[in-house]
């Protein structure tokens, strides 16, 4: 791929490689050089090797080939006549610097919000014919002129508020209190109740659950104590907290939550086929769950396993997994009813969540891509009860278009996940109930979180484009200053992921992408807006390791993503990635999070 004159400028200090076969006597020009941006791909594919001692494009430009040269030949001094004696490796950035000697504002102030100061104001004329040992100190930015936008913050330096403008007050849109009630024991009995830390579940609910849907063929329930986890299990379809509205609707008021016990939905079909897609986590429960991840049971949780058998062959149709979730919800819902009114019982913990609009702070949005390809790739949005099934709208039926939830709605169980994609990367119902990115953004006083957008990943390519374009229009209307885009899974949904990021980035909005890629999920498509990315992999080999929720977002990942977004919004460059998955990059970034 020969270079154009424009791209040549940017690559003068990159290695000179012939793009095509060229005969002896060719005087090299832009059109003869391979585009250095694809070198990593070519090297990775063994189509080319780059050796020490090669010439830069700048050095080879205008020189003459001594012999015929094959495509992808790296140019070295002995292959050419008339090589320029250019000093090696002047950084490209400097070559692109201003030509008129005007001192540029520091790079971190060169964001879109910071147009260069008018020449009459910011010029520092400087002419030196020769200088050695000279130290020059310039102010990092000129004093703002009336009517000139103040550049965004450099590094960690706060931009002082003008004295006459008091900081605008935060506006609390809604408040949610989660009251935690401890469960020390779960037992089966004649009626469902919660008393003195003991959750008793009516055994006959199992029969009721079997009638939840004609596709449900059998239901079994088992209490699994933390000390007895070495039990074999069918693949884990979901982890569902026990939470009920005590006051108000989803996202506000009071939600009673049982801590210390969670429901775990497992399933297979009548023929013995696990209900899963792209990886399955059937096996021993002490080995197949990454305990403590936001989506998973915690170390000390009692698991109430509901195992559902569905009609043969329906595991990969939407109706099959939905039937299994509906069956489990019959039992979970009875537990919700038992904790709706807990007058006189003292919660062990109260957590308050506030949807706050923070005027005067950069407006940001979190975009969460969820599966929407049908089969088990579906989600229920905003059910009536926290993490419930009833009342939820299926994102597949909504056409996967972007739907905005308030942060509190998300954290109050506003997503019941039907998704059964790879176990290690899927975001399940409990994940959303304590979504670390939502929690971190919601409480970040430096940001104004506008909302959480859920967008499905449709099955059909033109639908993918449609929903991404709707996302772009929504972002434009929201007038946000920054965005984080996350996706569960990997594979074809990375097409949506890249399109969603482009829909935002192309509108001039700084955007950070968050996904599992590593080795197995490395991206096959991408675009120039995907220049600030956070890796969710936790597997040492970079694989979808079939351990439940291993490669999903943790609070640490959220902190890195938010720091990267703030840094990008401030106009400070994010360095380009290595050309393959490299754990040390992630470790180094972690060190930068204070």
């Amino acid at each position, binding site marked *: 791929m020969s270079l154009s004159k424009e791209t040549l400028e940017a690559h003068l200090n990159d290695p000179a490689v012939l793009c095509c076969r060229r005969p002896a006597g060719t005087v090299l020009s832009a059109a003869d050089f391979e585009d250095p941006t694809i070198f990593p791909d070519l090297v990775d594919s063994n189509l080319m090797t780059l050796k020490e001692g090669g010439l830069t494009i700048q050095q080879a430009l205008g020189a003459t080939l001594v012999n015929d040269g094959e*495509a992808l030949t790296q140019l070295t001094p002995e292959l050419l006549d008339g090589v320029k004696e250019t000093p090696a490796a002047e950084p490209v950035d400097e070559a692109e610097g201003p030509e008129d000697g005007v001192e540029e504002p520091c790079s971190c102030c060169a964001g879109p919000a910071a147009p260069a100061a008018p020449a009459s104001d910011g010029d520092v004329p400087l002419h030196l014919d020769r200088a050695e040992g000279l130290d020059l100190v310039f102010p990092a930015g000129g004093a703002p002129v009336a009517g000139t936008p103040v550049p965004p913050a450099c590094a960690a330096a706060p931009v002082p508020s003008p004295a006459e403008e008091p900081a605008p007050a935060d506006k609390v849109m809604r408040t949610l209190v989660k009251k935690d009630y401890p469960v020390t024991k779960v037992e089966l009995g004649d009626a469902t109740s919660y008393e003195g830390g003991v959750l008793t579940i009516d055994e006959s609910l199992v029969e009721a659950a079997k009638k939840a849907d004609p596709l449900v063929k059998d239901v079994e329930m088992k209490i699994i104590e933390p000390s007895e986890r070495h039990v074999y299990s069918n693949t884990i379809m979901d982890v569902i907290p026990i939470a009920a509205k005590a006051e108000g609707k989803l996202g506000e008021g009071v939600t009673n939550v049982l801590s210390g016990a969670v429901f775990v939905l497992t399933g297979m079909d009548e023929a013995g086929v696990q209900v899963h897609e792209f990886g399955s986590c059937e096996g021993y429960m002490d080995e197949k769950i990454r305990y403590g991840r936001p989506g998973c049971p915690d170390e000390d949780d009692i698991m109430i396993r509901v195992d559902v058998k569905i009609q043969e062959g329906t595991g990969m149709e939407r109706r099959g997994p939905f039937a299994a979730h509906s069956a489990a919800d019959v039992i979970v819902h009875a537990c919700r009813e038992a904790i709706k009114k807990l007058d006189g019982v003292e919660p062990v913990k109260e957590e308050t969540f506030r949807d706050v609009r923070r005027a005067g702070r950069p407006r940001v949005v979190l975009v969460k891509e969820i599966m929407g390809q049908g089969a088990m790739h579906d989600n229920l949005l905003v059910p009536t009860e926290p993490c419930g099934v009833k009342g939820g709208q299926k994102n597949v039926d909504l056409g996967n278009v972007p739907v905005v939830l308030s942060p509190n709605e998300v954290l109050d169980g506003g997503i019941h996940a039907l998704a059964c994609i790879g176990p290690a990367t899927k975001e399940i119902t409990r994940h959303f109930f304590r979504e670390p990115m939502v929690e971190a953004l919601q409480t970040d006083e430096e940001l104004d979180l506008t909302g959480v957008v859920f967008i499905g990943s449709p099955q059909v390519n033109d639908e993918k484009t449609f929903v991404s374009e709707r996302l772009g229009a929504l972002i434009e209307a929201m007038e946000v200053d920054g965005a984080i885009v996350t996706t569960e899974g990997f594979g074809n949904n990375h097409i949506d992921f890249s399109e969603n990021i482009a829909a935002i980035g192309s509108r001039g909005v700084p955007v950070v992408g968050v996904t599992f890629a590593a080795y197995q999920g490395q991206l096959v498509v991408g*675009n120039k807006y995907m220049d600030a990315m956070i890796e969710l992999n936790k597997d040492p080999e970079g694989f979808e390791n079939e351990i439940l929720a291993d490669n999903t977002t943790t609070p640490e990942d959220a902190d890195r993503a938010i720091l990267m977004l703030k840094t990008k919004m401030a106009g400070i460059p994010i360095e380009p990635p290595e050309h393959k998955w490299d754990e040390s990059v992630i470790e180094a970034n972690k060190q*930068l999070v204070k």
Partner: protein
Amino acid sequence: MPTAFKLTTAKGLKSEIYVPWTPKPVWTPLTKPLSECKVAFITSGGIHKKDQTPFNTAGDWSYREIPSDTPSDQLMVTHGGFDNSDINKDVNAMLPIDRLRELVKEGFIGSLVPTFFGFMGGGGNVDKFEHVTGPEIARKLKAEGADIVLATGGCGTCHRSCTLVLRCCEEAGMSTCIIAALPPIARQQGAPRITAPLVPIGSNAGEPNNPTMQMGILKDTLNAMEEFDHFGQMKALPYEYRHNV
């Protein structure tokens, strides 16, 4: 952006995921069985009829119409980007026109479009291929009723030019696949489907005078097209040929 605020930032953050840059996906699903498909073939490897004006090897975005019943000995190559010796031995190494006719005879594919297209993608003008040559070839192939457009690139820049034209065809409602000697370039440029035999540029469709390999590459490519279900997929094909020029 508000004008006064504090942001905690860090210098030295590095993006954690490598992203190949590709243009937006274009995709036309293949909905017919191969035996009912009308197939077209295009190549950016500089193939034209001997009685047509040769390409300008310094860069040329024009194209030549090659009737699909042209005897292969009436075809030739004009391309400065790679060694021409394989094509000079057997033009099927770049444009497997004899093999395609055999595929029709066998009933493996339904029929061929009346017109194939040859162009010289080396040093190609991206803008012209994307906005002039590509749409023109796509329009003509669509008018001839093509369901499938197969292609070979030649050199590196050729793979880019070829991919640009294929994307126009895909956009116009035909399912396309490039048989790529340089798959990273095809992938980077956004080829909807890629198959990749281990062949050198200059014999992208297989070893010259090796009809078995050429036929295998074509059949495997067509079969792969039935498997591919979304944009950007690639399949390595188990054929290896090396030539030392």
